[in-house]
């Protein structure tokens, strides 16, 4: 049996709950990770992942396979994240730094962690769309064309978003990095 995303969606459109469960198990972990990186908040990320997967169920009969299912789902998750606009609660848990090991090279590691923490803080201060473009490009390895499809914009607009994001990051980091 064809168990591609598109085939499963066709079954979901006919009300097949088994196909929906398969699709959920396949995509919830990745969508949860994406929402967590965009929102920086684990609880909100769970809500967004749940809402996105519910939309998969309710909108399945209307879904047209014009784009890849994964791209469409990413777009739903990103839109839900942007709707939340909770910039203040963004905390990059994975970049928060670890306990310094007093082994050789521990000083370099601590410095490294400190810099990553600063960058994570700077990312937290970015506007939501710039932050999303950064996460999709660097975190998920998407091309500019794919990011444009997810954000429902043009490739040149994505390039502009990335350039502005880096300019903002540089501005935010400049003083801190110079102190190092």
């Amino acid at each position, binding site marked *: 049996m064809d168990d591609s995303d598109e085939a499963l969606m066709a079954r979901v*459109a006919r*009300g097949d*709950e088994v196909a*929906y*469960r398969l699709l*959920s*198990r396949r995509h*919830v*972990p*990745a969508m*949860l*990770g*994406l929402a*967590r*990186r965009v929102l920086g908040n*684990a609880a909100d*990320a*769970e809500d967004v*992942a*749940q809402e996105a*997967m*519910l939309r998969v*169920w*309710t*909108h*399945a*009969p*209307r879904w047209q396979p014009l784009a890849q299912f994964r791209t469409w789902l990413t777009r739903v998750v990103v839109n839900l994240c942007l709707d939340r606009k909770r910039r203040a609660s963004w905390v*990059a*848990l*994975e*970049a928060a730094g670890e306990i310094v090991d007093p082994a050789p090279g521990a000083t370099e590691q601590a410095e490294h962690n400190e*810099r*990553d923490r600063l*960058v*994570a803080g700077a*990312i937290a201060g970015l506007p939501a769309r710039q932050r999303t473009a*950064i*996460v999709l490009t*660097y*975190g*998920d390895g998407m091309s500019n064309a794919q990011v444009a499809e997810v954000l429902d914009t043009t490739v040149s607009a994505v390039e502009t978003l990335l350039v502005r994001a*880096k300019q903002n*990051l*540089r501005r935010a*980091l400049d003083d801190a*990095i*110079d102190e*190092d």
Partner: protein
Amino acid sequence: MTNDKFPEFLDGALERITQAPPADNAAVARVLKRLAPPLPRQKIALRRLPAVLLDWQFAPAWPRVAALAGCAALGFYVGIAGLDRRLDSLDARFAVASQSDVGAIVFEAESLTGARP
């Protein structure tokens, strides 16, 4: 840090920081549990309406629907164009003839003698 090294540093840092975290199995399980049935009603696409009606054994007979729609369109056209006014004027001619009150002449008793026809 020099200006030359900054873009390289930033790219490296962004790749490290924005990497997908390891899957949080507990969170995934919570979300999947919340997605368990009963699920909400699906939104039905219009293009699937005939199939849904067939499921309910309420399939539309398209020729009859088309005939009904044609009759409605024809009636609307006749009403708008005023094609039925000629028939109204025909009715008016009959109405004038009836105003002579023929019934009274034929059936009423004669005023002097009281004789009935």
